[in-house]
């Protein structure tokens, strides 16, 4: 382990933390269009953590991925000092604990529980709902759309009266989890010829999206829209045809 005389240079920073920063090796296995992997990148950037990004072809999974995430065989996987962590929600909490600067979750336990609750809700009802709507047709699609919009209304309610972001003045855990709505949902809406995020119905979320997309950590780190449109069009067609047999 490398020792640095931290206190001279970094003031308050604890010596242990500096040792960690000096010797840590952080890698992230991702996929260019995966909103889950992008969440992790945003979190690492907010914390100022340097990392090596490794692109994984999820349609032709590497032995590395299979070794690092044998249970789910999915991206993202964060590797820190040789230890692998999978599942974006779990990775985000790990990042928040391993690097204490710029906290992602609130300090208060009740506020933390609320952030986790809304994150889970949004993932189950909005993300999965919108994805189902994208990949299904007919009555099933309409049902998925209705349920997703209903769920979106609850998030709109949560945002009313909040400052800049769900995390307050700065981007936090819930902003990161919901961030896909800002750049990925519009692509799904276009590909699926559907409207979920009506700006008149959801003014608070719409305003939040604009602030989020303009945030320095976010704005230069988004997948290209044209490539996303092609990709999701192909995926939606493929999944819809398997569903219909």
């Amino acid at each position: 382990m490398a020792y640095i005389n931290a206190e001279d240079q970094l003031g308050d920073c604890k010596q242990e933390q500096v040792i960690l920063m000096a010797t840590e090796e952080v890698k992230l296995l991702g996929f260019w269009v995966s909103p889950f992997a992008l969440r992790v990148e945003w979190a690492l950037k907010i914390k100022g953590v340097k990392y090596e990004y490794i692109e994984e072809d999820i349609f032709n999974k590497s032995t590395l991925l299979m070794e690092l995430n044998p249970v789910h065989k999915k991206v993202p996987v964060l590797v820190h000092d040789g230890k692998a962590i999978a599942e974006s929600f779990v990775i985000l909490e790990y990042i928040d604990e391993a690097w204490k600067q710029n906290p992602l979750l609130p300090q208060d336990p009740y506020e933390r529980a609320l952030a986790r609750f809304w994150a889970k809700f949004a993932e189950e009802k909005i993300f999965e709902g919108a994805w189902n709507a994208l990949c299904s047709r007919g009555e099933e699609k309409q049902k998925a759309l209705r349920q997703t919009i209903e769920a979106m209304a609850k998030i709109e309610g949560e945002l009313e009266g909040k400052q800049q972001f769900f995390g307050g003045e700065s981007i936090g855990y819930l902003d990161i989890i919901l961030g896909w709505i800002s750049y990925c949902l519009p692509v799904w809406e276009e590909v699926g010829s559907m409207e979920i995020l009506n700006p008149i119905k959801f003014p608070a979320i719409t305003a939040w999206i604009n602030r989020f997309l303009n945030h320095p950590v976010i704005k230069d780190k988004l997948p290209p829209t044209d490539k996303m449109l092609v990709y999701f069009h192909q995926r939606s067609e493929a999944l819809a045809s398997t569903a219909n047999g």
Partner: protein
Amino acid sequence: MEGGVVLLDFWPSSFTMRVKIALAEKGIKYECKHEDLFNKSPLLLEMNPVHKKIPVLIHNGKPISESLIIVQYIDEVWNHKSPLLPSDPYQRSQALFWGDYLDKKMYSCGKRIWVGKEDQEEAKEELMKILKTMEGELGDKLYFGGDSIGYVDVALVPFTSWFYTFETCGNFSIEADCPKLIAWAKRCKESESVCKALPDPLEIYGFMLQLKKRLGLN
């Protein structure tokens, strides 16, 4: 710090059992309000308007829902004794990972077994795969938490009260393929916190039969 604690409970639910174990491990006194899921109380509807589900923990008048979120909350607030999550960030992440794995897989798998339709065989195979994976994760440890009950033990052990129901409905034996896991469950039940939270498996079976009748699933 220790204000009133109320738990909205439904005795056969593996999810409320998780919360009861966590509260008992921490020695927290609480009021247990039993819910009838076919006749939900105004309090439940007020405290969990989004999902209208149990468990709900109400602490100082503020509600927290989703069992593992509640367990994590309990661990963070009552952090002076019996830690459920490890303090090391990596170990903690692994515990959260397994809790998430169980949340994604166990309930829906178990339900397909006791409902007993065409997908039952597939569900049985999936259940055994999940349990063997957990057995592998347990390894030679006494508990998933190491020397004492931890977050993953709390997340998994309640489902063992449903094993008799799965085995009877699916006509198979879990112990035959997962003896280490059954031994672990027995070890957990030696703790008062677990023993008091888990109902008799025969009562769970009786409940399931009644539930199927009520839902017209026979």
